[in-house]
């Protein structure tokens, strides 16, 4: 017989024991572990998904912030450029006005220098002309320049027209009735009396005539009241010379300026 009843029963019992043992030691544990792992993996994946979403959000946020910053930066840059341009314009304007002022001051200084030089030149020229004239007169004609001046002055007085005489008299002070005769040199008594006589002839003898030495005249003689004078001196000749010199200076200085401008360019 192929089937042994004792063996069958024993095998059934054996198999039941095997089921119990394997269930206890293998299946329950392994299945639990597998389920736990599956759950853990699911949780982890969920977590990862959440983390990914958060990261995505964070990324979006960062991107937005970066764009904002970029925009702000651009704005600030534009503002800074604008400010810088404005500042530059202001500075240029300032510099230009300063330069203009300097130029003006410089021109004024030049003009002052020119004026001073001309004054000095005039003075010097007068003296030179006087000395030369004096020397020429004494050498060639044996005459003194001063005498010739007085002679001529007297002739001038004598030549005055009626209207000129009236004008002159009118300016003599009513109360004081004074008249000055200024000369660059001391007059001799003879000459003084001669001049007094001529003046009395012209304007009458009611006025008091004073003589005075005035070095400002350089070389010459004049008679003056409060508001009017009759003079005969070398300065009258020098006015023309001064005009010529002024013109010449102006031309020279303008030429120099042009040259400098070209150099700087």
């Amino acid at each position, binding site marked *: 017989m*192929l089937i*042994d009843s004792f063996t*069958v029963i024993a*095998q059934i019992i*054996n198999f039941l024991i095997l089921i119990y043992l394997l269930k206890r030691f293998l299946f329950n544990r392994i*299945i639990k572990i597998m389920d736990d792992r599956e759950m853990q993996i699911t949780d982890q994946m969920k977590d990862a998904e959440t983390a990914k979403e958060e990261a995505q959000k964070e990324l979006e946020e960062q991107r937005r912030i970066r764009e904002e910053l970029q925009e702000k930066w651009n704005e600030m840059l534009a503002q800074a450029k604008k400010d810088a341009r404005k500042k530059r314009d202001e500075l240029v304007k300032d510099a230009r006005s300063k330069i203009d002022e300097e130029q003006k001051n410089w021109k004024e200084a030049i003009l002052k220098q020119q004026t001073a030089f001309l004054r000095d030149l005039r003075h010097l020229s007068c003296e030179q002309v006087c000395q030369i004239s004096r020397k020429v007169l004494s050498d060639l004609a044996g005459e003194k320049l001063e005498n010739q001046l007085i002679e001529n002055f007297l002739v001038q007085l004598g030549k005055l027209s009626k209207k000129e005489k009236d004008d002159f008299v009118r300016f003599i002070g009513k109360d004081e009735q004074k008249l000055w005769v200024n000369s660059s040199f001391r007059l001799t008594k003879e000459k003084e009396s001669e001049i007094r006589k001529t003046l009395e002839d012209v304007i009458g003898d009611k006025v008091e005539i004073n003589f005075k030495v005035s070095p400002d005249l350089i070389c010459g003689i004049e008679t003056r009241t409060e508001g009017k004078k009759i003079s005969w001196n070398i300065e009258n000749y020098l006015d023309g010379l001064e005009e010529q010199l002024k013109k010449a200076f102006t031309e020279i200085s303008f030429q120099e300026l042009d040259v400098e401008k070209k150099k700087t360019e």
Partner: protein
Amino acid sequence: MEISPDAIIIFKWNGIHLNATIIFTWVVMAILFFISWMATKNLTIGPKISRWQNFLEVIIGYIRQQVKEITQQNPDPFIPFLGSLFMFISLSGLLTIIPGFQPPTGSLSTTSALAICVFFAIPIFGIAKKGARAYFKHYLEPSIFMAPFNIIGDFSRTLALAVRLFGNVMSGTLIVAVLLIITPLFVPIVMQILGLLIGQIQAYIFTVLATVYIASATRVESKPEQINQEEGSKEDE
């Protein structure tokens, strides 16, 4: 020459005679228990697991998947029974490679015992799942006249299970034994390899058939949508 290892009596005492079948069954059981105990001694759910754990997880995972596919239900209640069946038959077949080992499944007593276990497991699972009334009702379908045939079908399939497994395993062992006599060199090795393959296939067939029987007994046919919902809710968990 013995057809069944039952005939090899190793120990005899007071009417109790321990034959080779029982002894080798104990050997298989001991190996299974030892492997399980070793593998589950320190289980981890972390990414680093022991090789034994990994090996058993693969096998059990595969069994679960198969059972789930066949039953269309949560496989966990059936796993200890079906898993033990498969592992016992499979290991018995595998150990034939060891000279002198007599597979316990080559004994009709063992296969009968396993078939009897399946025979009783079917109504137990069916009643546990559907209740006694609903379970026994299916014997009366499609009509009351079919009840005897249904009952005969239950017995015949149990018999078929036992004989199929016994025949295959016994023939494999026997062919090797016969060939050893005729052509002692090389040919028995090929046949032994074939025997190994047949042992695994039989383990699979036996388990799958048991699964199908249990599945048919536990299936709630009238409300298929309810099954789907249960499945869905379990998968969600």
